[in-house]
C-alpha cells in the first residue's frame, strides 16, 4: 500500500526555495538559501559548501538531529553541481513539523528520513540550484513471516517488520541512498530495492498516458508533477 503523499513548493517568499513533504503522519518543511556568502572556515576554492540544518519539532537539537543532518547531507551533497558556484554556501534547513509517533524511537526517526529528503529536494529544485539529477526517497518495510514488501509503511507496520529500508533513487533509477536496518538476506534486499525503485524513478521519455491518481502518489512522479505545475504557473503570462 502506498500511503498518501502530499507536497508543495515556493511557500516561503524570502527563501530562495522551499518545499514541504507529507507522508502519512510525518510532515516536513525545507528551505534552501544560496548560493550565498560563506563563512571563511567553510570556504572551498573550487566548490560550494553545502550545509544541512535539521530542527526538531519539539525540544532542542540533539545527537539525533546531528545524525539526520549527516545522513541528509550524504544524500543531497552529491546531487548538487557544487563546482558551478565556488566559494559560496548553499544552506538547506529542514524543519520537522510532525512525526509519525510521539516518542523518539528509532522507527520515528527512520520515518523522518525519506520525507525530509524529498522536502529538501523540492526546495533545491524550487531554488533552481544546479543539480545533477532529481532524487526521490521512500521507506520500504520487509514484513516478518509473510515476507511481504510494504512501501511507505505506517508505525504499526514497522513494528511487525523484519527490516526497514530508506532508499533514494534518481529519476533514472540509480540508487543514491540506502539506510537499512533489521535482519535480512541480500535477496530480500534486492526485492525491497526493486519496490523502492518502482515508486521513486520516473518512466523515461515516451510520456505514457498513465495519468491515474495512483501514479501521482508515487513520490518520483509527485515531485515531477509539483515542479511542472510551477513551470506552468511561471509561464502563465504567455497564455
Amino acid at each position, binding site marked *: 500500500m502506498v500511503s498518501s503523499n502530499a507536497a508543495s513548493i515556493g511557500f516561503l517568499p524570502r527563501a530562495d526555495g522551499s518545499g514541504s513533504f507529507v507522508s502519512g503522519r510525518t510532515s516536513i518543511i525545507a528551505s534552501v538559501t544560496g548560493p550565498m556568502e560563506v563563512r571563511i572556515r567553510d570556504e572551498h576554492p573550487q566548490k560550494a559548501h553545502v550545509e544541512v540544518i535539521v530542527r526538531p519539532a519539539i525540544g532542542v537539537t540533539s545527537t539525533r538531529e546531528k545524525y539526520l543532518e549527516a545522513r541528509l547531507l550524504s544524500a543531497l551533497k552529491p546531487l548538487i553541481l557544487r563546482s558551478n558556484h565556488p566559494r559560496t554556501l548553499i544552506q538547506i534547513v529542514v524543519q520537522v513539523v510532525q512525526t509519525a509517533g510521539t516518542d523518539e524511537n528509532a522507527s520515528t526517526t527512520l520515518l523522518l528520513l525519506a520525507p525530509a529528503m524529498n522536502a529538501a529536494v523540492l526546495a533545491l529544485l524550487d*531554488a533552481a540550484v544546479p543539480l545533477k539529477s*532529481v532524487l526521490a526517497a521512500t521507506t520500504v518495510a520487509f514484513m516478518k513471516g509473510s515476507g511481504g514488501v510494504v512501501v511507505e509503511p505506517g508505525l504499526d507496520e514497522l513494528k511487525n517488520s523484519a527490516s526497514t529500508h530508506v532508499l533514494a533513487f534518481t529519476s533514472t533509477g540509480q540508487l543514491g541512498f540506502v539506510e537499512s536496518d533489521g535482519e535480512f538476506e541480500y535477496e530480500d534486499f534486492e526485492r525491497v530495492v526493486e519496490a523502492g525503485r518502482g515508486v521513486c524513478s520516473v518512466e523515461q521519455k515516451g510520456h505514457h498516458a498513465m495519468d491515474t491518481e495512483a501514479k501521482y502518489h508515487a513520490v518520483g512522479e509527485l515531485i515531477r508533477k509539483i515542479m511542472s505545475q510551477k513551470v506552468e504557473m511561471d509561464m502563465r503570462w504567455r497564455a
Partner: protein
Amino acid sequence: MTTMLLFPGDVVPELPTPQKTNTALKVGPGLTYTPPDKVVAHRVGELHVDDRKCAVWMEGNGKRYIPSLNDAVIATVLRSTSDSYILAIPSSTSPAPASIQALLPHLAFPQATKKTRPILHPGCTVYARVSLANKHMDPELECYDAESQKAEGFGELKGGMVFNVSLGMARRLLGDGKKIRQLQLRARKAEGTEAEGGEISNGMEVLEELGRVLAFEIAVGRNGRVWVDSEDTKVTLCVGSCIQKSEYLTGDEQRALVREALRKL
C-alpha cells in the same frame, strides 16, 4: 521553436545544427555542455531552441540572482574604498541578506576623472551594468553602456522607490518576453497555424498600459528589482503594485488589472 519541460539530469534530445559553418552552438542558462555533443539540464524549466541563432536555453524562474555579463542591475552602495565602491546586488528575496557584493570602480562612469567622478554615499541606489561576471571572482559593475561609452540611463537613481519582482518578471519587463513571443509566432508560421490560437502575450502589457496613462520613470534590474519614480507617491505605489501583481497574469488580465487600479487612483 519547440518547448518541452526538462528536469535536472535530462538530456536535451535534439540540438540545432549550425546552419553556417562558422556559427557555434550557443548553450544558455540552465544547461551544461559536455563535449562532444551532450547537453544536460541542471534545473527545472522549459527548453527553448532557436534554430536560426543556433541556441538552446532553459526558461525558468527563480529568486536568487547570479550575475551575468552585461546584465543591468539595481544595486545598493555599501561603502567606498580608495578606488572603488562596494555594492550589494540584492535578489528579489530582498530584504533578505546574503546578497552578492560587487565592485564599482570610482572611474567606471562616463567621462569620469578623479575630480569629476560622482560621489555615492552608502545607501545610494545605482543602476549599473555587470562588466565582469566569473564564478571565481567577485562581480564588477560599470555605469556606462559598453558600446556608446555613454551613460544611457545608468548611474545613481535618485528618489523613487524600489520594488521586488521575480527574476523572470524582471526579464519580461526588459522585453525578453517579446523575443519568446516572436519565436512562437515564427514557429506558428512554420507550422502554418498562424490563424489558430489567440494572441500571444509579451508579458509586459502591464507596463505598456500604465505608460499610456501615467507619467513615471522606471528602471528594471535583472536582479529582480524595479525602481519607479513619479511626481506623486500614489502613482509610484500604483505602478509598483501593478507590476508586482502581474507576475502570473496573462496580457489581458494585466490590462484589466491596470484599468481597475487606475480607476481607484
